[in-house]
């Protein structure tokens, strides 16, 4: 199925999609298109955030929206994240559907009060009388010495707050379909995008469609080890799986696509089949989403496990700036391969 495919190189693209005449687009274009279609379809949708009207258009994801929809619906803001989150939330409680954009996830802690204490809890606190359809897009980045305050991947911690949903799309297909689903969902959703995915290509239909929350997808079937990979790590896991195949190890790659809700059933099903679990996350290992995924798999499929589960993610230190230190900080396909080999041997 083209929408489950993760294409790790150009060769893949040609053979998998172009030959079938399927539409190939980049992650960033898929996002941009989702915005346009959402804005066209529903006058309650508006886009708000620092620089959404900028010529750069938040790395291209909101490019051209100002010209098409005007400043009432594509709204730049003062640098006042918490207050503006509350304002967007207030509008959402009264029928609007804001998409709030942050260039970097590092700015989320600035709006923690409104996200955690207000948005996530409003529906429950009001006995279901008021819903809060607020979608917050937050970009993770890395590289070029951005250091400790400009390269964090905070998706994991936000899964701790009941009432909030968290999406981590890895493919153009999911980026578009999950954003549309998020805006239509009626709940507060944190939508986490990794900047390195923006140029990646893949299949995405031109029309409007939804990717359901809480449904994982098997990116590659395998029998000996399950690799649950989040966001950018899906690509690293696919590269690793190809290398493992060459080494005679059959790996299954599972992409949860949303981490709240998390498709525990799909992960457990895979672990029951392979007997081994490796979780690869773009976030930190300590108290990260890899801990939750691993614990869930142990609860659901412990008796099937032939090896202790393993996790790959960021080490427990802030992001370093220097290029050499960055290299040591970020894990990739080679680490996944080495870890998977330890599990199977």
């Amino acid at each position, binding site marked *: 199925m083209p929408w489950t495919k993760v294409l790790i190189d150009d060769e893949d693209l040609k053979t998998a999609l172009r030959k079938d005449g399927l539409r190939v687009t980049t992650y960033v274009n898929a996002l941009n298109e989702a915005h346009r279609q959402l804005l066209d379809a529903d006058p309650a949708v508006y886009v708000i955030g*620092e620089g959404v009207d*900028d010529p750069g258009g938040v790395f291209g994801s909101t490019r051209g929206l100002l010209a098409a929809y005007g400043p009432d619906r594509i709204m730049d803001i003062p640098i006042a994240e918490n207050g503006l989150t509350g304002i967007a939330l207030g509008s959402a409680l009264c029928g609007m559907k804001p998409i709030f954009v942050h260039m970097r996830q590092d700015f989320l802690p600035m709006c923690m009060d409104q996200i955690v204490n207000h948005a996530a809890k409003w529906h429950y606190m009001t006995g279901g009388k008021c819903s809060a359809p607020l979608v917050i897009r937050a970009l993770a980045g890395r590289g070029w010495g*951005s250091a400790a*305050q400009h390269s964090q991947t905070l998706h994991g911690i936000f899964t701790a707050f009941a009432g909030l949903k968290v999406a981590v799309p890895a493919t153009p297909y999911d980026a578009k379909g999950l954003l549309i689903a998020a805006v239509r969902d009626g709940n507060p959703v944190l939508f986490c995008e990794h900047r390195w995915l923006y140029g990646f290509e893949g299949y995405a239909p031109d029309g409007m469609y939804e990717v359901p929350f809480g449904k994982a997808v098997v990116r590659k079937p395998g029998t000996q080890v399950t690799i649950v990979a989040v966001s950018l790590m899906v690509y690293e896991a696919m590269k690793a799986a190809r290398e493992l195949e060459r080494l005679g190890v059959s790996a299954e790659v599972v992409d949860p696509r949303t981490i709240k809700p998390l498709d525990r059933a799909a992960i457990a099903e895979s672990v029951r089949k392979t007997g081994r679990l490796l979780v690869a996350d773009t976030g930190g290992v300590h108290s990260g989403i890899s801990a939750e995924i691993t614990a869930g798999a142990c609860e659901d499929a412990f008796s099937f496990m032939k090896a202790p589960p393993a996790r790959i993610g960021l080490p427990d230190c802030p992001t370093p*700036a220097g290029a050499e230190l960055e290299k*040591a900080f970020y894990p990739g396909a080679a680490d996944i391969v080495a870890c998977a080999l330890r599990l199977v041997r």
Partner: protein
Amino acid sequence: MEQLSTQTQIDLLAAMLAIRAFENRISSVYPQQEMKTPVHLYTGQEACAAGVCANLEREDMIFSTHRNHGHYIAKGADLNAIAAELYGRTGGCTKGKGGSMHFVDTASGCMGTTAIVGGSIPLGAGAALALKMRKSSNISVSFFGDGAADEGVLQETLNFAALKKLPVLFVCENNFYATNSCVRARHAHGSIAARAQAFGIPAETADGNDAETVYRAARKAAAHIRAGNGPYFLELLTYRWKGHVGPDCDYEKGCRPKAELDEWMKRCPIELYAARLAARGVISQAGLDEMKKAAEARVDRAWSYALASPAPGPEDLLTDVYRAAGESA
């Protein structure tokens, strides 16, 4: 108005020249892509840092932002160490951990810089709280931009600083832009200084491109604070010549009008001041050339040091996460 001492006039010019030379060097080498860190250049705003820091003692403390180079150079930070930091080397002021946005030089009172907009505002006030609690006669300075004034933390900090009469100088460099958003698109009311006044803090808006104007305003502010009267607020109107980040300009991308930039470039703080000193007979053309050469030479030395410094290795990744027991601060 009484004339500043010759030495002060020369010092102001020298500080601005040092900043300009440092930033120009970054601009010229950045395309080599060996400096793998974002750079937010201070070019065009030199009079602000020079004028404020000339009123500070070495033990006074400053906190700054992503656009920190000027403040640190004017406060007397070690040029070698900050240059090496731009290259992520072990000889860098944070040993390659912080990069361009997290310079530090505690020996000269440069207490750190934040990449989170508004973050420097309460830190400066907190340092002032510590100074006051420890009965120090020193003061602290929070440098920040007009963008940071958007953050709620400004009002929270102003209130507390006024309440506790903290020895803190708030310096808002209003360069009219936050990334590419013009201040008119973000502020309903023109005066940032008025916000401080609302808390009873004396505040002044001054021409941030005139080194002497800044110097006099900061001198008055510092005297007020050192006399135990609590905080003071300066809003300095200035302009950055380069894009928000990186050595290029940005008008060609439609981020701001070229005519506006041209107008401000005509008001180059360094040329303005050099011309004034020449008219007063304080420096000659030869003297100015000499000063420029000296600034270049300092930058040359800093770059030699930086490039000779080794890169950290993977074994350095997990150091400095925590302070070890018994290790001194």
